[in-house]
């Protein structure tokens, strides 16, 4: 082991000399019952709700239930060393997590301990996990777009900085993939507008989290990302505090005036962990055996997403909570709760996923209630009618299945719809820049694809992008930067697309 600078003899000597000789006075209690990660403690008469208590041996706990003659605490570590008669000390603190620039690029547990083996994290500041969300006057409306790089989302369900957009769907429908793409896409964005990203893994398998970290590292996204992980094998108490820990880290950056994107993957497991704790603490169960305050559990978390006013530095915290549904049932308890607190949802459907439409966004059921005003004008112009076109197509496609004769206009709409559906497919880990999205969607909505066969649409997109990147990089740059699709710019795009007609080779 290397000698550290603080190990110089004189420093050690002064540490020993100036070592505090005062006595420790602590309020204490005694464990009277322990099991299932819950300890009942007698004593601790002055303890406050949510206070951190110390069971010794490095095991901490949180006071959850203050009852007539005992305190119900959840343990934050293994309960093997805690037994009846163990002395418990008050700490007088609430749970907090170290925050600061050094946390970026790290994988930490919800108490801030590093999990990536890259050594201690040096920070000066800590933030309490649970703080009240900024008030109304501290905020301003959402007005800047947050680009995810996913065509279907940026065009039809645009997300604004400071928004809370729910990603909801059954298992294995690409929920995590969307969140990861949004994180990876921040790389495409100039550093000034780039979000610091926080990925909170709640109750997932260790292997899945390791895979996520590897993916983010491979794409160079760990340079601006923090991963907070409480896996399935951790105590429920850690799962319960994980989203708040991630949020506290995010809020630190937000108050520094930065933009932050936080992903909670996923809140269904978070609610289940809370249910487990509540039932073991003998709180009364309600619907689906969740405790009565499970709504508050998520609302107080998601309320912390916001766009701060300019006086407060103008930072923002955008939240992408993820909810897993069972058999597409969005009317279950937790999904309805979270839908009602968020500003919209991206609804992923397994039937779409299985029929090869990836990302499997159900356009009809996905909405963004505030992102529209934040969308770039260029994007709004090309995507304006996309949603209506697609839903008309789906309606007509239903008729067409009966083999009924359709008029010319309807046939045209069906053909257009088929191509647009195809065009909105997008591979994982390949987010596009805004300009590229605008260009591709422009081609689709302005009929440039009508002459291309459906099977060739993605091929067309590929070739178009590589052609423009090499031959017309200036136009692409302009599209990336400009806020509005001026007539001059639109002219350039048109001529470029006309020119490409001759370059495009079908069936390759």
């Amino acid at each position, binding site marked *: 082991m290397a000698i550290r600078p603080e190990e110089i003899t004189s420093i050690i000597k002064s*540490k020993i000399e100036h070592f505090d000789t005062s006595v420790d*006075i602590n309020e204490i209690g005694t464990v009277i019952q322990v099991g299932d990660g819950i300890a009942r403690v007698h004593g601790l*008469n002055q303890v406050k709700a949510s206070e951190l208590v110390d069971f010794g041996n490095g095991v901490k706990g949180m006071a959850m239930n203050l009852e007539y*003659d005992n305190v119900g605490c959840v343990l934050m570590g293994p309960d093997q060393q805690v037994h009846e008669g163990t002395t418990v000390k008050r700490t007088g603190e609430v749970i907090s997590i170290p925050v600061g620039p050094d946390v970026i690029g790290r994988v930490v547990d919800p108490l801030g301990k590093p999990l990536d083996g890259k050594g201690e994290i040096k920070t000066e500041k800590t933030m309490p996990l649970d703080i009240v969300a900024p008030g109304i006057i501290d905020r301003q409306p959402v007005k800047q777009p947050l680009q995810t790089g996913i065509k279907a989302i940026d065009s039809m369900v645009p997300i604004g900085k400071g928004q809370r957009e729910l990603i909801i769907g059954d298992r294995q429908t690409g929920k995590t993939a969307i969140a990861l793409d949004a994180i990876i896409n921040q790389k495409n964005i100039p550093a000034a507008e780039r979000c610091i990203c926080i990925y909170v893994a709640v109750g997932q398998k260790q292997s899945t989290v390791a895979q996520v970290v590897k993916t983010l590292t491979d794409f160079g996204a760990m340079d601006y990302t923090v991963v907070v992980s409480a896996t399935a094998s951790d105590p429920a108490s850690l799962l319960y505090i994980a989203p708040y820990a991630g949020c506290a880290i995010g809020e630190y950056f937000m108050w520094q005036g930065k933009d932050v994107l936080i992903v909670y993957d996923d809140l269904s497991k978070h609610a289940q962990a809370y249910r487990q704790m509540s039932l073991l603490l003998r709180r009364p169960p309600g619907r689906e055996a969740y405790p009565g305050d499970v709504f508050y559990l998520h609302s107080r978390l998601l309320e912390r997403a916001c766009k701060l006013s300019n006086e407060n530095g103008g930072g923002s915290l955008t939240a992408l909570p993820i909810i897993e549904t069972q058999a597409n049932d969005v009317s279950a308890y937790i999904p309805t709760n979270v839908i009602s607190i968020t500003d919209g949802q991206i609804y992923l459907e397994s039937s779409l996923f299985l029929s090869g439409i990836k990302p499997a966004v159900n356009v009809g059921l996905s909405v963004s209630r505030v992102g529209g005003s934040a969308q770039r004008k260029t994007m709004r112009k090309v995507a304006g009618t996309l949603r209506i076109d697609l839903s008309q197509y789906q309606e007509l496609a239903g008729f067409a299945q009966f083999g009924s004769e359709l008029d010319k206009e309807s046939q045209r709409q069906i053909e257009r719809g088929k191509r647009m559906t195809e065009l909105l497919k997008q591979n994982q880990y390949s987010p596009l820049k805004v300009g590229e999205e605008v260009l591709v969607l422009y081609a689709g909505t302005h009929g440039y694809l009508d002459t291309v066969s459906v099977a060739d649409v993605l091929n067309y997109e590929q070739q178009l992008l590589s052609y423009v990147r090499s031959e017309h990089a200036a136009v692409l740059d302009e599209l990336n930067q400009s806020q509005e699709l001026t007539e001059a710019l639109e002219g350039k795009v048109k001529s470029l697309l006309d020119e490409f007609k001759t370059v495009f080779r079908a069936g390759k």
Partner: protein
Amino acid sequence: MNSTNRIAAQRYAAAYDALSKTNEEASRRSVLLHEVQMALDSQQEAMNSPRITLQTKKEVVRTALSGSPETANFIELLLEAKRYYLLPEITRRVATLLDDRLGIVRAQVYAAKELTAAQKRHTEQVLAKRYGGEIKADFITDPSLLGGLKIICRGEQIDGSLQRRFAKLEEELTK
């Protein structure tokens, strides 16, 4: 012991304590209950056995405690309410309630070596200043403290032991 039991024990203890008007009465009752509990403790098996009827148990208690019908009543009440198993806990709580009446504060004082009589008296005086009332301390020898005192009193732990300081120093140096 679950919380229902603790709450029940507290209620029985409070009721028993409330029988006494004066402190003398209260200490007499507390001592009596303690003795009864100790005596019955040797009869645990019989008292808890389901093969002996409630009636028999009551009779035994009544004859044994013919001198103090009140305490006999109390034990019978516990037997009837199926709370007899709480008797040791109730006795402890009655003693605590008596301490409260008399203004006695209990303390546990741990030291590495046996303290001298003067040191003990001094410790009690200091504690009396902090907590008020009359301090009754149990002095316990615990060599693992190495030096200094550790005191537990009124739900507080005052730790001035060398052991804790070393532990803290270790924490500091290995940080």
